[in-house]
């Protein structure tokens, strides 16, 4: 498995004001942009999470942090 080093992380919080798909209107999202160092080059990974997915991610990160302690 290839491993990457996290170089930078940026996030953005927003809400969908209008959409061609009705169900998306009013949804909150968190967009995360990660800059990863593969060793030979820098790669950018962009992902969008719903609020639930973001809280799930936060939960996993906190679990990892507690385990490290």
């Amino acid at each position: 498995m290839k491993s990457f080093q996290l170089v930078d992380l940026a996030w953005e919080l927003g809400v969908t004001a209008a959409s061609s798909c009705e169900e998306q209107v009013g949804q909150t999202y968190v967009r995360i942009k990660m800059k990863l160092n593969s060793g030979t080059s820098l790669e950018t990974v962009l992902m969008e999470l719903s609020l639930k997915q973001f809280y799930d991610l936060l939960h996993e990160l906190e679990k990892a942090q507690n385990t490290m302690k």
Partner: protein
Amino acid sequence: MNCSSNLLFVTVPKSVEQLSKQLQSKIVDPLILQTLIDFSNRYWNGEEICREEWESLLKNSYLPLTIFENLFSGVLILTLAVFQIPEKLFTPELVCAELIAFGLAVEQAEQITQLKATSNFKIPKLPKLNDVKWRIDVTISTSNVSRILEPWILMELNLESGDQKTIHFPLAQFHSLRYQVASCLNQFTKLPV
């Protein structure tokens, strides 16, 4: 020799004119020509022609390399022109007649017209747009700036090829896109179609 072609070419390319001259001078063996037609069909279908096949054909033709290459060039262009005829305009008899006018024998003309039916040749073209989805996002906050409230448009383009392209742009660029689309539509209405 005057080859006026209606279905195949608007203007007959030089390579096809040269091919026609060579065919009418009878320096080309019919079997060699048949193999060249087969090679060109394989080429346009993306198949590789190995060096040994090519060299063996050249040896058997007893033709100088430059003449042989010019021959193949002409055959390639001729077969491509046949493959590019739209289905609704393709009449085998008319195409055969035009190919015979170029100096091909009846058998070779029929070989090319029959190849069109069995060929997998696909004219390269840009993928078509299947579906567009959009949404307007208002950014509340980012890691760099705490309070923005800036609207952005996110557009998802689903292409016929199965690819999905997502583009993200601010309001100013969206207005520019709208303007370009409107200009394009305006030109469409002016077309004499």
